[in-house]
């Protein structure tokens, strides 16, 4: 297996899918300021996906472009975590999904910005700036909704209960990561989960929310086994490229 390809593909697919989900909000946000914020964040993720998938194509060395990878794979070849493909449902679920993900992305990029692989490091450094803002934005909303009204508290607690099962996969690790760490391409990920957990504990405590007791965790996304939702995302995402193959747009 080409570990550099696989690793950047995973990162790129995470950005691609969460960006897609956020972009579905465009024009439908709960307030105009949030419509602007979510569109802006979606745009950051599309930008990250573009850089990461371009780089994955380069690592693969078979001439596939970022667009080829974004639009022309089958579902099993997408390697994003299940969390990012989960539906928006409502603003609470969207913000909780975002928070759980941003809290993982920040310490991840903090490590990757020092990767010996200069191309990965450069993308991580740029993305980290964006991620810090994303995390601030999503944390603030989790706190507001958790400690807002009774209704908002109930809704965001339910969002947490439902999404918690997808957080374990954020720390999925296999030969791909191990090989790159051993080869010195990327730094060690020691302490990543602990840092995530610390951010999550602090923000959820301030939000007066309770971490679910069940320890059951799903995975599969990193190996290409997705939830039913991915097929529908791909139907929209790939529509033009599948309907009109091989054209310039």
């Amino acid at each position, binding site marked *: 297996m080409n570990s550099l390809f696989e690793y950047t593909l995973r990162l790129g697919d995470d950005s691609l899918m969460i960006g897609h989900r956020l972009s579905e909000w*465009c*024009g439908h946000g709960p307030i*105009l300021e949030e419509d602007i914020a979510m*569109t*802006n964040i979606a745009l950051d993720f599309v930008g990250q996906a573009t850089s990461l998938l371009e780089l994955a194509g380069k690592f693969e060395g078979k001439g596939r472009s970022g667009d080829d990878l974004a639009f022309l794979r089958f579902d099993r070849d997408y390697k994003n975590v299940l969390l990012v493909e989960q539906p928006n449902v409502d*603003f609470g679920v969207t913000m909780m999904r975002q928070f759980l993900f941003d809290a993982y992305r920040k310490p991840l990029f903090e490590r990757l910005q020092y990767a010996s692989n200069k191309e990965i490091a450069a993308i991580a450094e740029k993305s980290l700036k964006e991620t810090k803002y994303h995390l601030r934005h999503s944390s603030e909303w989790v706190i507001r909704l958790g*400690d807002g009204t009774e209704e*908002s508290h109930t809704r965001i607690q339910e969002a947490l209960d439902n999404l918690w099962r997808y957080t374990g996969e954020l720390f999925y690790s296999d030969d791909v990561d191990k090989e790159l760490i051993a080869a010195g391409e990327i730094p060690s990920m020691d302490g990543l989960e602990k840092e995530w957990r610390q951010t999550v504990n602090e923000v959820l405590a301030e939000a007066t929310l309770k971490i679910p007791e069940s320890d059951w965790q799903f995975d599969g996304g990193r190996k290409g086994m997705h939830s039913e939702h991915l097929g529908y995302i791909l139907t929209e995402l790939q529509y033009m490229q599948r309907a009109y193959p091989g054209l310039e747009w």
Partner: protein
Amino acid sequence: MKEEDRAILEQNFQAKIDNDIRIEPNDWMPDAYRETLIRQISQHAHSEIVGMLPEGNWITRAPNLRRKAVLLAKVQDEAGHGLYLYSATETLGADREDTIDDLHSGKAKYSSIFNYPTLSWADMGAIGWLVDGAAIMNQVPLCRCSYGPYARAMVRVCKEESFHQRQGFEIMMTLAKGSPEQKAMAQDALNRFWWPALMMFGPNDAESKHTAQSMKWKIKRHTNDELRQQFVDVTVPQAELIGLTVPDPDLKFNEQTGHYEYGEINWDEFWQVVKGNGPCNKERVDARRKAKEDGLWVREAATAYAAKKKLRKQAS
């Protein structure tokens, strides 16, 4: 206020306008001037916000990552324009939420062009090229509007609109030089958006009830027909350049006037769409209303949290 005092204030006000001195929020202004501006600026703000929907419709289906990013950025700009425009109405004493409720109840209007559906990717090109192109014609003169906050908002809006117009034209150009099916897609979009774009300038001058007063107040600097002509004159050669045909059999260039003459606009269609009978009027307003209703619990939570935070700060 005494009648003679009011007459003096009105004279001073008109003298400022005549001397191209900007009116600012704290200056005295006639009620009708204030109301006209609130109506026009909030209508403009609503158009930006409703206008996010037909384009937002294609973000998840954009054909490549670059187009997706550009479209997201464009729709985000529109939300930003909506925000400054609502702020401009607030400088006149209007309440943003009240004006939005007027949109939802059907009392306030927005640009009718957004009541047409976006059926293909080429519509993203046609909207940028024609709709933003027409908006620029309308908005560039508004940068010199007599009301300061509106004029200043328009300076920034126009810069972004000109980028939108270029990206739309570039989409059309790419399609027009692409495969036969891409070219057909571009031509179809032009066919559907051409006449609605001409209607964006509003009724003929003889029918326009607000034009004369708005020109006297220098809210408006050109008539609807002047702006429409300018748009046709600029846009027809652009269509020719990329090999698309403007869907008007009566269109011809008049060497003597230096202008294009164009066919009769279907004003019945225009008034039907204004009255609410366009293909997407109901969907657009329903989508906006739903966003507001679905977001109610979020806004309530934000308010409740802010109040709690303030109390805690006072207590500590």
